C-alpha cells in the first residue's frame, strides 16, 4: 500500500496537482440475522480500492477504483486531474488548505475479542437463543415477527498525502439488535427494539456480550404485545417530558450534530441534506440550550462509533467544544473551511464511507455531557409528565430547526411515578427552545455512547457511523401528541 500510495502521489504531482492525497481501504463487513427462529442472512462483504483526491488549477477532483494494476492507477490519477480542471471552470476562488498536515502514525481500535475470530456457530446460536426467548412469550392473540441481528466491520485504511502524511488505521466495529413486531387482527402494528435499533461501537465481540440480548428478549417481546392494547398517548400543548438516554442520543444527532456541520452552514449541502439554522452570526452569540447543556464533538472516546485516530484528511482525532454552558461555541470543520473562516486548525471531522467516496464533514461522537441526576430520582421529581423511550420515527426540517420525533413507547408519570404504558407517542418542538427547556440531565452511571450506524449525507450518498454520549434528560413545556 505504501508503494502504491507513493506512486500515485508522485504521478499526480508530476502531472500538475498542487495537492494530492490517496486513501487505500479494505473493508470487511459481516452480517448475521435470524428471523422467526431461522437463519435469515449470513453475509460477508469485502470491498477494497483506492481513492485519489487532488487539487489542480485551484479546484478539487476525486477519482477511485477497485482495481490497482498499473494501467488502472494511471487512468484514475489522470481522471482525478481532469475532473479537478473541469471543476476549475466554475471556480470563484482557489482552494486553500492552510498549514500542511504531515502527520505520521498508526491507530487501532481497542477491543478484547476480535469478532472475526469468534466462530460463526457461536454468533448464530446467540441470536437464535435471543429470538427464541422473544417467541416464547405469551401472545394473547397477537402475531409476532421476531428478528435478531449482528454486524461486524473491519476497516484497514492507509492515508498518504503530498504534504508528507502517512497514516495507517485499523478500525473494528461490533453491532447488534433484536426486534419484536407485534400485530393484531385489527391491523395494528407495534414494534420494540433493543438496545435501540442497531447499537454499535468500535469494540470487539465483548460489546455484543455486554448487551445481554437473550436476557432482554422476553421483555422486548412482551412490551411489543402490551403496546397493542395500551392507551394512546394523550395530547398536551405543553408538558414535561423525560427522554431515555437513547432518545436523547437521537435528539442530539438530529438537532445538534447535523446543524453544526460547517459545510451545511455554508450551503454546500443545500440541494440534498439541507442547510443549518446555526449560521455564522450565531457562533458565540446564540444561547442554544439551558446552562446545563454542554455538548462536545469528541472522536477520542474509547469505543465510540465515531472514534478513530485520524480523519480522512490526515488530521488527528480531537475533542471540540460545541455548546458550553448552553452557549453555541463551535462547528465541526475541515481544513478548507477552517482556513477560509479563520477558525484555526481543522477539528478533524472529514470522513468518507469507503475508498470510493470523497470525505465530507461528518459527525464523530457528539455528546451531551452528563449531569448529576439518577433516572429514578428524576421521575420521582416529576409530578406530571411523559417518559419517552427508544426512537421509532424522526423527521426534522432542512435547517434542523423544526423537529417531530416519535418513540416506540412512553410512560405516563403522575405524582413522581410511572403509572401507565402509552402507545404511539410523539413530541415536537423547535431546536433551541427545546434545549433551553432542559432542566435536568442524568449522570455518568447512565451515560452511554450510543452508536448510530446509518447516518446518511452527501451525493453520491454516504452512510457513516456516528456516536452520541447521552443519558436521560428532562425538558419542560413540550408539545406532545399521538399518531392515532
Amino acid at each position, binding site marked *: 500500500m505504501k508503494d502504491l500510495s507513493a506512486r500515485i502521489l508522485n504521478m499526480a504531482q508530476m502531472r500538475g496537482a498542487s495537492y494530492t492525497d490517496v486513501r487505500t481501504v479494505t473493508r470487511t463487513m459481516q452480517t448475521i440475522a435470524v428471523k422467526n427462529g431461522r437463519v435469515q442472512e449470513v453475509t460477508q462483504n469485502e470491498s477494497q480500492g483506492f481513492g485519489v483526491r487532488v487539487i489542480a488549477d485551484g479546484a478539487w477532483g476525486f477519482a477511485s477504483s477497485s482495481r490497482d494494476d498499473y494501467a488502472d492507477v494511471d487512468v484514475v490519477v489522470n*481522471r482525478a486531474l481532469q475532473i479537478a480542471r473541469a471543476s476549475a471552470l466554475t471556480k470563484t476562488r482557489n482552494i486553500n488548505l492552510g498549514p500542511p498536515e504531515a502527520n505520521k502514525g498508526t491507530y487501532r481500535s481497542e477491543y478484547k475479542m476480535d469478532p472475526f475470530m469468534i466462530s460463526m456457530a457461536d454468533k448464530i446460536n446467540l441470536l437464535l437463543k435471543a429470538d427464541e426467548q422473544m417467541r416464547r412469550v405469551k401472545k394473547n392473540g397477537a402475531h409476532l415477527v421476531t428478528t435478531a441481528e449482528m454486524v461486524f466491520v473491519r476497516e484497514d485504511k492507509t492515508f498518504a498525502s503530498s504534504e508528507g502524511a502517512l497514516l495507517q488505521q485499523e478500525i473494528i466495529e461490533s453491532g447488534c439488535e433484536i426486534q419484536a413486531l407485534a400485530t393484531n387482527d385489527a*391491523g395494528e402494528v407495534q414494534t420494540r427494539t433493543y438496545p435501540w435499533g442497531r447499537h454499535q461501537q468500535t469494540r470487539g465481540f465483548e460489546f455484543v456480550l455486554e448487551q445481554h440480548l437473550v436476557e432482554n428478549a422476553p421483555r422486548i417481546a412482551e412490551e411489543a404485545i402490551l403496546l397493542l392494547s395500551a392507551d394512546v398517548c394523550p395530547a398536551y400543548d405543553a408538558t414535561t417530558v423525560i427522554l431515555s438516554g437513547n432518545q436523547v442520543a437521537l435528539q442530539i444527532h438530529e438537532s445538534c450534530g447535523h446543524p453544526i456541520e460547517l459545510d451545511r452552514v455554508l450551503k454546500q449541502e443545500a440541494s440534498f441534506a439541507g442547510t443549518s439554522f446555526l449560521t455564522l452570526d450565531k457562533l458565540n452569540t446564540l444561547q442554544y440550550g439551558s446552562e446545563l447543556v454542554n455538548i462536545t464533538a469528541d472522536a477520542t472516546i474509547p469505543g465510540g462509533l465515531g472514534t478513530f485516530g485520524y480523519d480522512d484528511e490526515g488530521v488527528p482525532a480531537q475533542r471540540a467544544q460545541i455548546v458550553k454552558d448552553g452557549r453555541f461555541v463551535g462547528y465541526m470543520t475541515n481544513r478548507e473551511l477552517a482556513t477560509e473562516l479563520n477558525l484555526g486548525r481543522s477539528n478533524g471531522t472529514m470522513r468518507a464511507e469507503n475508498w470510493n467516496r470523497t470525505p465530507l464533514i461528518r459527525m464523530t461522537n457528539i455528546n451531551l455531557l452528563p449531569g448529576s441526576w439518577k433516572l429514578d430520582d428524576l421521575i420521582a421529581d416529576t409530578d406530571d409528565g411523559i417518559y419517552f423511550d427508544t426512537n421509532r*420515527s424522526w423527521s426534522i426540517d432542512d435547517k434542523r430547526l423544526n423537529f417531530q420525533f416519535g418513540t416506540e413507547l412512553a410512560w405516563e408519570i403522575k405524582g413522581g411515578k410511572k403509572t401507565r404504558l402509552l402507545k404511539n407517542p410523539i413530541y415536537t418542538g423547535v431546536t433551541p427552545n427545546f434545549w433551553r427547556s432542559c432542566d435536568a440531565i442524568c449522570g455518568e452511571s447512565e451515560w452511554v455512547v450510543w452508536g448510530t450506524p446509518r447516518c446518511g449525507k452527501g451525493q453520491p450518498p454516504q452512510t457513516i457511523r456516528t456516536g452520541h454520549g447521552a443519558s436521560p434528560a428532562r425538558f419542560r413545556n413540550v408539545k406532545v401528541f399521538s399518531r392515532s
Partner: protein
Amino acid sequence: MLGYEKLKQLADAALAYSKAEQTEVVLHAVDSSLSRFANNTIHQNVFESNVTVRVRVVMGKRTGVAESNDITPDGIKRAVETARAIAQAQPESQHNAPLPESAPAPRVESFFANTAECSPETRARSIGNLAKQAAANKLFAAGAFRTDAFELAVANSLGTFQFHQGTVADLHTVVMNDAGTASGYASASSPDVRALDANAVAQRAIDKALRSQNPIALAPGEYTVVLEPTAVAMMLQYLAWHTFNALAVQEERSYVRGKKGELVFSPLLSLFDDGSDLEGYPLPFDHEGVPRQRVMLIENGVAREVVYDTFTARRDNVASTGHSLPAPNLQGPVPRNLFIAGGAQTRDELIASVTRGILVTRFWYTRLVAPLHVMMTGLTRDGTFLIENGQVSLPVKNLRFTTSYIDALKNTRGVSRETELVREEMYGMNFRAPTLVVDDFSFTGVTQ
C-alpha cells in the same frame, strides 16, 4: 465497463469453481461520475469505477452469501469459498428456497454512449450556465449532475445467465436567495443525457425561488394539495416498501392484504411496475435472474397484485414476479420501476380546478410513523405556494404533514396527463409520476 463476454467469463469461472448443490453469481459493474455544486460553483466532483461479485451457495437447507470487489481469479475463488464456509457454519433452515430457473429476460436497450462518455467538462459547462442564470437573478444554485454507466449480470448453476447494461443521467438543483429564506427545486432524469434540458431545469428552479420570497404562514389543517411529480414519487417510494411488497402482505402489515379486487384508492389511479418500460430506468430482471413481469398493482383504484421474489412466491404458491433484491434480504420484494398512469387533464388545468389549496414541489425528511396505513410525517420544501381561485398566488412557509399516504391516494381527485421520471438516490428506485390533486391532506405544523 466490462461487457457481456467478460462478465459471462467471470460468472462461469465462479460457477465452475463452486462445489455447492446450487450457486448463484451476481456481477455488478459501475462507472459513476457526479459533479456537485453549491454557491454557483462546483465544490465536489467525483468518479468511481467498481465491480462487485456476489456469490450465493445453497447446500441442502443452508445458504451462504459472500460479496467482494476482487474479480481476479483468486478473488472469485475466495468469494465462493467464503460463501461455502458461511453456509457450512449454519444450522439447517427451512427458510431457504432453491434457486429459480429462468427463461432469458427480454433485451432492453437503455445504454446511451453519450451518457457513459459524458465528460466532466460537459457537466461543468452545464452547471456553469445554470449558475450564471442563478447569479443573474442574485440567487445561488446548488445541486448535482450525475452520469453513470452500469452492467448487471446474474447467473446460476441451473443455466440462467442474464445481462443488462444501462445509463443514468440525472440533474437536479435547489436555487436559493442569499439568506436561504426562498428556494426553488427542479430536476430532470433520463438514461440519455441528451434528453436533459439543463436550461429548463434552471428556469423552473429560478422561477420558484423568485416567487418564494417573503412567504406567509398558513395555519395547520386539512388542505387540498397539488403534489408535483417529485412529491408524488416520494410517496410511491414508501408504498413500494410497505404496501405492494408480498412479504409485507404475508406479515400482515400491508394495507392491501385481503383487499384484492376491492376499490382501495381513487378510481383515477392506476399503478404498475414495469422493469422493461423505456419511459423509466429499465432493469428487465431481478437479482435472482428472474425476468421482471409487468405487475398491475392498482387498476382504476382497485387492488390487483403485489410483487414477489422466489421466497415469498413459494410461500403463496405462485410464480416470482422478478422483484427480488440482492439475496438474502429481510425487506422482501420491492417494485423499483413504478409508474402512475397519466390522467386526462394538464397540470395547469388541475391547478385551475383548485379553489383554495397548496402547491407542493417536494417533500423532505419523510418518515414512517405507522406502516399499515403508511402514516407518514415530513415537511414541504423548495417551492410551497398557496393556490387561490385556480391560480398559484403567494409563497407559504414550509409545513409539516402527518398523514396517511393510503388516505392521500383515496382522496386523489385529479391526475395530470404529463408525467416525469424521478430517480431516487439511495436505492436507485425510479418512478414515472404525474401531478396529483389530493383533498384533505393533513398539515400538522408550520416551520419557523
